């Protein structure tokens, strides 16, 4: 396999691929049909992004189906299990807000990622709006939905610091400014939803380490096994 670590298309492609797979796990399990379609649409948008990005880094199928866990460069946030619906929405809110800001920036650069970023930013704006709308309704909804939404936001908080660690090949991205915009937007949504902004460490010794360096959390291996099983069992199979 080609050495694909040099291009930033790999970590960003892995983010899209892994989150797409997680969202796909809702198929057949979503609380209502309309929401199942919405989540599947978002998953397919992300899969489209992943295909373009991974193709910039090498052979998309090889990269998706034949790498080992340690070779994936995705954020630990996106590999976190779906949990309840509130967990999925919290993960979406944190990630799509980040992705929108990053793609907005990349679209204005000379980077090889600029064309993809310019196209994807419209999709991602919708993903962020979807998560924003649900956060408002769960946070300011019933007692039960409010407790669950807050629990989910708190639980995933420790994975959010990693998003703003510099990425190899993306040295020109103004990460601290990106972080401040992210924090402002998240604060705005959570205040509107009458939720509390989580406090607690987001990086450093108490955080979960970094997926960007190939270190992943416990459930990632199982997810990968399911994602890669068919391709590994039937190498080169076609429809």
């Amino acid at each position: 396999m080609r050495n694909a670590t040099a291009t930033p298309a790999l970590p960003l492609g892995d983010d899209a691929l892994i989150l797409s797979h997680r969202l796909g796990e809702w198929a057949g399990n979503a609380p209502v049909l309309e929401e199942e379609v919405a989540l599947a649409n978002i998953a397919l948008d992300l899969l489209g992004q992943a295909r373009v990005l991974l193709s910039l880094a090498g052979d998309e199928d090889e990269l998706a189906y034949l790498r080992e866990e340690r070779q994936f460069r995705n954020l630990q946030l996106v590999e976190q299990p779906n949990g309840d619906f509130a967990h999925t929405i919290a993960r979406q809110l944190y990630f799509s807000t980040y992705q929108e800001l990053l793609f907005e920036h990349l679209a204005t650069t000379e980077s090889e990622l600029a064309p993809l970023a310019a196209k994807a930013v419209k999709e991602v704006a919708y993903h962020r709006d979807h998560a924003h709308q649900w956060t408002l309704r769960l946070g300011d909804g019933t007692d039960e939905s409010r407790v669950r939404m807050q629990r989910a936001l708190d639980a995933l908080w420790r994975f959010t610091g990693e998003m703003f660690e510099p990425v190899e090949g993306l040295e020109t991205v103004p990460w601290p400014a990106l972080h401040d915009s992210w924090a402002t937007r998240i604060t705005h949504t959570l205040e509107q939803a009458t939720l509390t902004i989580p406090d607690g460490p987001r990086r450093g010794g108490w955080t979960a380490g970094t997926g960007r360096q190939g270190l992943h959390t416990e459930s990632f291996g199982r997810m990968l096994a399911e994602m890669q099983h068919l391709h590994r069992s039937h190498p080169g199979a076609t429809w």
Partner: protein
Amino acid sequence: MTTPRPAETAATAAAAAPRPGDWPLWEVFVRSRRGLSHTHAGSLHAPDAEMALRNARDLYTRRSEGVSLWVVPSAQITASSPDEKDAFFEPAGDKPYRHPTFYEIPDGVHHL
């Protein structure tokens, strides 16, 4: 479908929290392109109007079917009754002179 007895209905209503199935129904209208009117495309469930609009986007416009969407609470629609069909519609059936078929349509006029 069986009709629950009144006692059962009351007990069920008291015990059950709102479920997705309780979401109201919305009718979706899609304008396929500028200059055309919105056309009924189908219906969906949603907790409120804003979410209905988003669900409509996901269910009915994924393949570039539209440039504008309306959602209307189904409960707000007053429909003619099938029982009144004859009184409402049949008298028009044998009056072809009401149709504008005796005019030449100028070239280049569409959507008439």
